[in-house]
């Protein structure tokens, strides 16, 4: 081996040693270089997953957006660090961001659960309340000849309420909230409108009670039969000797709320009357009938005042108000008369005579006694 050969050999040995030493140094650097905070990252991911599971996106959107944004920043930071040479990587910021993501995700999840729980119990309570209002309207007002939008609002409220119930059953509380709020507003409006309407009607209650008391007292004094019709209760009572003898279900004119004012208003009059004629089967198309003396003096005076004031059309006051048969239809269908079933009409017909007092009142009971309001 020549001098040159020895030099090359030494050079190669030096290169080899350099590679080996370099390798050792490199391995050392790799072993001690920065490592990504995997535990914090996994925690952040679990936190986000849990938050999504409890629908934080829907029920705590602000908190969830914060958590998702921080997570995106964390991932970008991780990518940024990974793009750097391994010796210069620093995962501290990533660890902080991952930790913040975990906190924000848990906060979002907690908030979502809280809101969901509160929505569930709040909505369940509200559903119950709206349901009760709807039932209350159905029982107390739906059958009344209400003016305005009360019935339409009630129907709309009922539809919205039923939709809300469906959405509640499948856990879509956001949807429940939207429909239930509308249902609640509509039914509250309907109840209030109906209540206002009925309150106006019931202002004559003391007069009605006085008429009824006077009629019963007359019956007692004269040991005779009298008829009292309670329009609100849809009842026809017969008193004998001041004592209630029998009661019948009664049907009225469709606009039975309020007294009769003029011909064709389809209202049943309120006042103190008496039977002027008993009509047998051949004399009426409604099985049998008891004609009363509508209009009485009070009715005529009211009609004159109303016509003078222009509050009603000058169409005539109307007449031929009767208690007659052919009832039992389940609706208020007469032109202002009181209709009983034919079987009840037979009984009533045999209990009264021409001259029997007939007192027709709006109601014998107050609104509070009827529906608790």
């Amino acid at each position, binding site marked *: 081996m020549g001098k040159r050969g020895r030099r090359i050999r030494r050079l190669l040995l030096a*290169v080899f040693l350099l590679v080996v030493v370099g390798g050792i140094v490199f391995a050392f650097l790799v072993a001690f270089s920065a490592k990504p905070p995997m535990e914090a990252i996994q925690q952040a991911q679990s936190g986000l997953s849990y938050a999504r599971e409890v629908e934080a996106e829907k029920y705590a959107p602000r908190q969830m957006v914060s958590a998702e944004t921080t997570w995106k920043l964390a991932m970008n930071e991780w990518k940024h660090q990974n793009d750097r040479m391994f010796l210069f990587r620093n995962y501290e910021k990533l660890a902080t961001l991952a930790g913040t993501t975990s906190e924000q995700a848990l906060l979002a999840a907690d908030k979502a659960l809280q809101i969901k729980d509160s929505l569930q119990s709040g909505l369940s309570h509200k559903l119950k309340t709206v349901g009760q209002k709807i039932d209350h309207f159905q029982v107390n007002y739906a059958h009344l000849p209400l003016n305005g939008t009360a019935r339409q609002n009630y129907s709309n409220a009922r539809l919205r309420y039923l939709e809300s119930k469906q959405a509640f059953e499948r856990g879509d509380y956001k949807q429940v909230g939207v429909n239930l709020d509308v249902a609640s507003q509509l039914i509250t409006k309907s109840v209030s409108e109906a209540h206002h309407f009925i309150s106006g009607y019931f202002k004559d209650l003391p007069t009605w009670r006085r008429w009824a008391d006077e009629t019963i007292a007359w019956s007692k004094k004269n040991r005779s039969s009298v008829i009292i019709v309670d329009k609100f209760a849809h009842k026809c009572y017969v008193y004998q000797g001041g004592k209630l003898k029998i009661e019948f279900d009664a049907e009225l004119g469709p606009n039975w709320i309020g007294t009769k004012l003029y011909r064709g208003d389809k209202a049943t009059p309120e006042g103190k009357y008496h039977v002027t004629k008993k009509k047998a089967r051949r004399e009426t198309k409604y099985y049998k009938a008891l004609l009363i003396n509508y209009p009485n003096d009070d009715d005529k005076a009211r009609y004159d005042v109303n016509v003078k004031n222009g509050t009603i059309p000058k169409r005539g006051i109307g007449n031929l108000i009767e208690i007659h048969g052919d009832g039992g*239809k389940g609706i208020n269908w007469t032109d202002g008369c009181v209709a009983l079933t034919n079987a009840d009409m037979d009984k009533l017909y045999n209990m009264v005579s021409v001259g029997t007092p007939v007192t027709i009142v709006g109601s014998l009971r107050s609104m509070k006694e009827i529906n608790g309001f």
Partner: protein
Amino acid sequence: MKRNVMLSLASLFALAILFAGCAKLPEAEIANAKAAVEAAKAAEADRYVPAEYQALSDSLDAAMTEVENQKSKFAMFRSYKNVTAKLNDVVVLAEPVKESAMTRKEEVKAEAQQMLAEATTMVSEVNDLIAKAPKGKEGKEALEAIKNDLALVEATLAEVSTLIENGDFLTALDKVKAATEKGNSLKMELEEVIAKTRR
């Protein structure tokens, strides 16, 4: 001299191994997995099968984290073998999730459509009953009120049709169920009145 040549070759071989050992990022698998999850979402899996979609989405997130984890390692020590398997699993998992969502969606759609058809039939039955109901003085006002309510039911059914067309089957189902209940109550009300009138 021969020994020197051998040493040089060994060094070169070591360097070659060093670079050949660098694993390649499974870009195609990542793209496939992401596309599969997107496809499941497009099929509204998040709405119709939320639990399954959540599990799928979590699997993708876990795989992507693992990708970044591997990228954090020195090139020589990276291995995308497990990640590739996970990403492939996501693609495999996504298909049944998408199918389930589509099936559930179709079920809800079919239910909503069937109920809509039944409700439409019921509306025409109620209209027939209105025609048969006592007219004139015997309940004209009551019929008007029922007609108004029926108009409300019809308006709701029109909304249901629009919702079905727009693909919002769950809301459509809520609405059609409510409309059906209301329509049935109207039908019963009318049948009762007609029965009483015929006595």
